């Protein structure tokens, strides 16, 4: 078994796409709009060199797929920062921090030394938390 795709909710796919590609430097893996599914848009991105794993930037659908109340709850959870975290790794946490900072990424934590390496944290425009770690020790899952 392998992990192929995982998803984050986004409040706006265009804004999310600009963030994940232009600011984080990821590439589009799929961008397909399906008229027979009410213009559902399957939009995935992943880092250069990692073609076999991707993140779906999933619009919160609303009715009829998702009822009003649930839609509101998911929007709220996402904006409150509780809709999940994407954990990324890098070879150069401090370098990436400087680069992303200069592109206007909203950081929640500056790079710091931890027992497991150096990491920092930031948010996407929807409020999702993203962690960027330069791992020192062999990862223990």
């Amino acid at each position: 078994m392998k992990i192929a795709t995982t998803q984050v909710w986004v409040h706006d796919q265009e804004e999310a796409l600009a963030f994940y590609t232009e600011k984080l430097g990821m590439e589009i893996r799929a961008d397909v709009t399906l008229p027979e599914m009410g213009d559902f848009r399957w939009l995935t991105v992943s880092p250069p060199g990692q073609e076999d794993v991707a993140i779906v930037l999933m619009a919160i659908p609303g009715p009829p797929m998702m009822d009003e109340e649930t839609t509101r709850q998911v929007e709220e959870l996402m904006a409150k920062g509780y809709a999940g975290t994407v954990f990324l790794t890098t070879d150069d946490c401090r370098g990436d921090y400087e680069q992303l900072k200069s592109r206007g990424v909203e950081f929640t934590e500056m790079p710091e030394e931890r027992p497991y390496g150096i990491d920092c944290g930031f948010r996407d425009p929807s409020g999702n938390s993203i962690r960027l770690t330069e791992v020192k020790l062999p990862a223990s899952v």
Partner: protein
Amino acid sequence: MASVTPARHLLRAKDLADARYAEPLEVDDLARAAGLSKAHFSREFRRTFGESPYVYLLTRRLERAAALLRNTDYSVAQICLEVGLQSVGSFTTSFGRMYGMTPTEYRAAAPPASAHAVVPACIVRAYARPQHRTFREDSGSGRA
């Protein structure tokens, strides 16, 4: 373009408390980060996150103080200042309310988490923040 919900702005205030608790940060500063007036901000923050911004900031500071007690040899007075609190007396009292023991007793009782497992720092912060216990310094706005 779809717009974010108001909670997204409140999240900026919460992130500010998490990032800059070590500075002399107050509820006014958090309100500014959310772009709201103080009274409106405190009400909305509490409605959204279930506790007042004052309590959130205080428990963040106490969580960080507890981590410094576990992981460093800093004095209690130094730790108090490190987490952005000014008075050692009220720090010790608040700490005692939340953790049920003095900072010194806590240090003696708690081995560092890193001795048990490699857990990302953001997880440590999220899960170790103490449950607030109502106290006069909370001006009656805390959860009972």
